[in-house]
């Protein structure tokens, strides 16, 4: 290729201009001077060594002359040949423009070497280490509450929560901070190096966000951060007493102050288990206290920390606990839902009179347990059991199914109201609230509940 770039560009522009003119006016009414112009251009191209282009332009010029000469039936054939010649010029032009652009770009951009990036002005990762204490879910975010291992300062590691992520202790959590999938259990009991990550101070605590170009690091050994006890604000170690009442479990300080801590089903089941040994279990907890609520982060146990609200093992009844409950004269069917579905299935499988007796016996047992303060099973399970009982008794359908179980109405009303109220306050989950609604409607207490 010629190295005379401006000259070549000018020649290509000239060819382009003639081609554009032809395209615009059309072959039928081409400028009569165009053929001559093309010949001149071809001579110029040939003189500069662009023989391939010159040949195409000459061919196009001859075809244009032929079209001008022809007046008979061969004129269309001549015009067609001109069209092909015009497209051949367009193809040549496109190819040479691209080649020229490559050459020019190589020369224009190939010179100066890049300036090295300035060294990062960020603190090293090791400049701040934090120990994670617990996790808080809020909509599209997940916040890991942690304490600075040197100062005990409250640090929040905030991550976006991708859709579909389920926070479960033994599942991997896709962490943006660590840029790795890490089991949640590992993360919740980890010490991390987070120096130099994007950070800010908000509401008296440090908030740290994931970095695009740097990952936090898991430390091999957990460092125990210094935490105060029973502080009014921020992170604190706290001794709690759990008490069961008609509205479920509440958590209090040892001074009797009732804390606004939501007790979800997982924690409630854990407390029921603990209450087999002592009616009001005592817990050593790490909490975050704000002006309006307290967040339970973790429970310190003799054999390590626990997070019952995330731990599916608290939802199961170990064999030795079941034996102890039986020994104490308690029933074993205190676990909501799954045992009840099994009972219903067994009743269904029996001949009708035996099935009815079997189911009525268990419903009577459940009634007693609920009167004693045990948890109320979910609305959808009670509704199923109620419908089955009505069917076995031969009662016509239509009545509220849970009403057929004759359970204590006050407890049903409270069990229905609690998840709905939590949801309306913005702290409960929608599924639990929906189940509360079902419980209210299917037990016939909805009108009473909503009037109140």
């Amino acid at each position: 290729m010629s190295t005379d770039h401006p000259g070549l560009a000018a020649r290509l522009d000239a060819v382009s201009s003639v081609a554009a003119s032809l395209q615009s006016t059309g072959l039928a009414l081409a400028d009569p001077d165009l053929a001559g112009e093309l010949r001149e251009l071809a001579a110029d191209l040939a003189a500069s060594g662009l023989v391939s282009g010159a040949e195409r332009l000459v061919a196009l010029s001859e075809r244009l002359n032929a079209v001008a000469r022809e007046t008979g039936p061969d004129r269309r054939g001549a015009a067609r040949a001109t069209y092909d010649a015009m497209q051949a010029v367009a193809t040549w032009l496109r190819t040479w423009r691209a080649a020229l652009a490559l050459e020019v770009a190589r020369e224009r951009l190939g010179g100066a070497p890049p300036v090295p990036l300035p060294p990062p002005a960020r603190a090293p990762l090791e400049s701040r280490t934090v120990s994670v204490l617990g996790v808080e879910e809020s909509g599209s975010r997940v916040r890991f509450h942690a304490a600075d291992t040197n100062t005990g300062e409250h640090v929040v590691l905030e991550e976006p929560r991708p859709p579909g992520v389920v926070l479960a202790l033994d599942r991997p959590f896709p962490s943006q901070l660590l840029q790795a999938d890490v089991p949640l259990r590992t993360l919740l009991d980890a010490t991390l190096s987070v120096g130099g990550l994007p950070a800010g101070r908000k509401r008296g605590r440090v908030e740290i966000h994931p970095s695009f170009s740097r990952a936090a690091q898991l430390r091999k050994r957990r460092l125990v951060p210094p935490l105060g006890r029973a502080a009014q604000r921020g992170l604190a170690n706290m001794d709690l007493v759990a008490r069961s009442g008609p509205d479920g479990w509440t958590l209090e300080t040892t001074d009797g102050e009732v804390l606004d801590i939501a007790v979800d089903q997982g924690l409630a089941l854990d407390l029921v288990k603990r209450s087999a040994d002592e009616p009001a279990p005592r817990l050593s907890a790490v909490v975050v206290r704000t002006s309006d609520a307290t967040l339970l982060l973790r429970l310190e146990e003799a054999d390590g920390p626990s997070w019952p609200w995330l731990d599916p093992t608290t939802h199961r009844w170990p064999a030795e606990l079941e034996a102890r409950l039986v020994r104490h004269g308690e029933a074993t069917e205190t676990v909501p839902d799954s045992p009840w579905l099994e009972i219903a299935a067994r009743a269904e499988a029996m001949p009708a009179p035996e099935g009815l007796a079997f189911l009525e016996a268990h419903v009577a047992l459940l009634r007693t347990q609920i009167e004693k303060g045990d948890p109320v099973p979910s609305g959808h399970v009670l509704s199923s059991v109620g419908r089955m009982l009505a069917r076995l008794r031969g009662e016509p359908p239509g009545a509220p199914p849970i009403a057929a179980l004759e359970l204590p109405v006050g407890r049903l009303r409270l069990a229905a109201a609690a998840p709905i109220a939590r949801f309306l306050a913005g702290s409960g989950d929608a599924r639990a609230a929906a189940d509360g609604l079902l419980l209210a409607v299917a037990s016939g207490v909805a009108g009473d509940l909503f009037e109140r």
Partner: protein
Amino acid sequence: MALDPPAGWERAPAALDRIDDALFRLAEEGLERAGEARLAELAALAQTAHHARLVHLERELQALGTVLRRYVDRDPTFRPAEAGAISNRIWLLVAKGREALARPSGVGELQDALGVLRRRYEPVAGTLRVEALGASGWVSDTGFVGITAYLAAAEGEVLQASVARPVTLIGPNPARLLYQPLSEVMPVTMFDLAHGAWMLDDVRRSADGRLSLHSQLAAAPAAPTGAARYARHLVDHAAAIVERLGEGELDPLGGRASALVYLQPARLQAVVHNEVRARVSAEVVDRAGAVLRVEVPVRPEHDILVENLARLAGARGPFPVGMFGRAWLAGGDVGFLPISATFDAPVPLRARGRAAVHELHLSIERLAEDKER
């Protein structure tokens, strides 16, 4: 070797003649005399090409129709050279198609010459980990609006996953597709797919690197790897882009050769509106001082891109650590269409939920106003 062309292609020779003849008549009359009748004829020709399985030609005819519509409407974004380039590609495609049909040596060769009516999506064994590099909104000359996500897969391969709807249904704003679920049964949206990493199961993909977002596709979030995902596309400076573009630029049927690159810009030059040419331009300056030109026509689908570039060029806006985009040669300059900008700390978006992200997809997501941040 004798070969029976698949059904539909028996109409191809006659269709090629019709298309060739129509384009010849257009050249005979000249652009000056193009009008509604010619546009209607081009639309009918596109249908003819469709029924004859001439997929490449169908697209080019639709594109020519769109360009000529701008001429007929006296749209200032009309460029005669664009019409000429498309006409030339049609001429070349007709010749290539005739040659392939006259001496067919295999279905693959015919498909290369004539196009494939529908992409074949083949199942992929096992799971596939993908990580978003960028996402861009588009409005096609063929009347569709969509978003394409560029996803890094194993061994540096870039896969594309697109959602598209007719412009007549949702208007010419691709951002409206950002928060729609990818399918009726999957809660994942294009926004989710375009931010972060995913483990996909029951994957179906085409030979040209397209992922099917079908209803059986399962997606589980995975941990993103930050800057590491761009390593294969990182170019030190603009000169390296020229080498990447290479010979592809010289293939007349290859279209405008382009490469996906990731640059670390030193600065962005102010956005300039050229009202005469109906174009908006800006410049990305690399660390060697080389300038990459950003130039887009003034059209509704580019509004968000222009707004974001103006914000990034402004002294008060956050400055990106990198820009992922498509680069090509433009008359001796390197043209660059920035797709996404990356930031070390998450930047908040002006959108519902005010999500904060490391990757700002420039044509479909707006940076939050300063006062919102």
